[in-house]
């Protein structure tokens, strides 16, 4: 099993979700986050006072999938979240040791 964590541009969420659903991914967790990468930040000016805003708003999505589905899921996120502009985000993939569905007690593949 793999845990896929992707940082994407907020307005790309719906496309990514649709693509993952089409692949059969059963669930996803989304958080509003702030951060920076190569895009850096921007500058706000209020009556001449300039503030560098170095953390930009992004969405973090977390998806747990069976190992054999990981490559397709990663490809789906990568293609749907892409604009070609700096700031499109990143995808992090880690191995997942255990999954438990709280309601039924099912584990691992059955719980996904």
């Amino acid at each position: 099993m793999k845990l896929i964590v992707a940082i994407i541009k907020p307005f790309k969420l719906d496309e990514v979700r649709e693509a993952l659903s089409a692949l059969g991914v059963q669930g996803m967790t989304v958080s509003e986050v702030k951060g920076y990468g190569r895009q850096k930040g921007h500058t706000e000016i209020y009556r001449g006072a300039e503030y560098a805003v170095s953390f930009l708003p992004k969405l973090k999505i977390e998806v747990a999938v069976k190992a054999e589905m990981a490559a397709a899921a990663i490809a789906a996120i990568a293609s749907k979240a892409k604009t070609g502009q700096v700031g499109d985000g990143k995808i992090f993939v880690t191995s997942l040791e255990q999954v438990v569905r709280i309601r039924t007690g099912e584990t691992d593949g059955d719980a996904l």
Partner: protein
Amino acid sequence: MKISLSKKLALGALASAGTLMATAGSAFAAAPKIDSGDTAWMLTSSALVLMMTIPGLGLFYAGMVRRKNMLATMAQSFGATCVITVLWMIVGYSIAFTPNPGAGLNPYIGGFAYLFLKPMGLGVTSSLAPTIPESVYMFFQMTFAIITPALIAGALADRMKYSAFLWFMALWLLFVYCPIAHWVWGGGWLGTLGALDYAGGTVVHLNAGTAGLVVCLMLGKRVGYGSENMAPHNLLFSVIGASLLWVGWFGFNAGSAVTSNVNAGMAAAATQIATAAAALGWMFSEWLIAKKPSVLGMISGAVAGLVAITPASGYVNPTGALIIGISAGVVCYVASVWVKKLLGYDDALDTWGVHGVGGAWGAMLTGAFASNAINSSAKGWLIDGNFGQMWIQFVDVAAVFVYCGIGTFIILKLIDMVIGLRVSPEVEREGLDINLHGEEVHG
């Protein structure tokens, strides 16, 4: 605050004749002629000016502070409103707007006959507003007395103790605002000299702005000023606040005709024109220099225009209003953005840059653009060739600046010695809302 002189004299004579007759015998009793149209407009104006402070000014300021100080900022406008209302009833109105029996003292301060508003019965009128009940005139002036000290809160934002703030409001009202209001409007020396201040360019705005400059210098900068992000937490509130100020200002300026007549109409028109022009003046200056027309810039410019047209509103024609407005937008932009940065004082929300500078600018331009054709009690420099008016306006500006500066300094020194002015750095960092008021804005 000035109705046309001829009408004022005529009505004043009528009113005093009425009083004489009433005392002479009931057969000829003609009570002072209270005009229902004037009274209706002045009741409306009073409510409009109150709305400028709560919620207008409160929202304007609260949107510009950081989220942790939002309620504390609202508490300043609201608390000032309540404290000043009570003090105005007890003694403020009396020393500002009623004559002093000592003729030698009257140029400087009013009398004490109106303590607790005791003589203010149903049919009583003031010689300053002979066509409306004195209760209405007292209420109208009360709303001016409320907003003037409340404006200072912009300079002391984010760092003053609430107890010190309330003491400051109370003492400043009694020892700075009331005397100056008496000098200009209550029969004192500046009014006698011929200073033109229709609705409070010096009495209200230069006065509050000067006090703001003094208090921000005495408090010192906010913790983290210049290094931490102090961006306004929600400018939507400020836009709503500025818009309420704009609408309420028709009570301020057109209401200062103290009648519902031609002067009120002209003052309203001048106010609208100057405000829009100043918003554009600030916006285009910023667009040119900082490359973007900010929303904060537009609303700041509008307030600057409202401030600058305040002393001029009942005296100038529409062209005068346009010039005063555009120039005030540019001048206040320069004062609030460039001069402040250059000199390094932390006038947090630009009480001095907008109200002090805009008030003084408007007061001087009133001398330049006042027109006898618009108001028979005024003769300005550019239209009527009366350059002497510029000198009188300068004396008005200088007197208010100097007296207010010294008075504010002494009051703050006293408060600082007894209870201290400023919250601790820990309180300031964590926020005034939770520490001073035990509340926070959620959601």
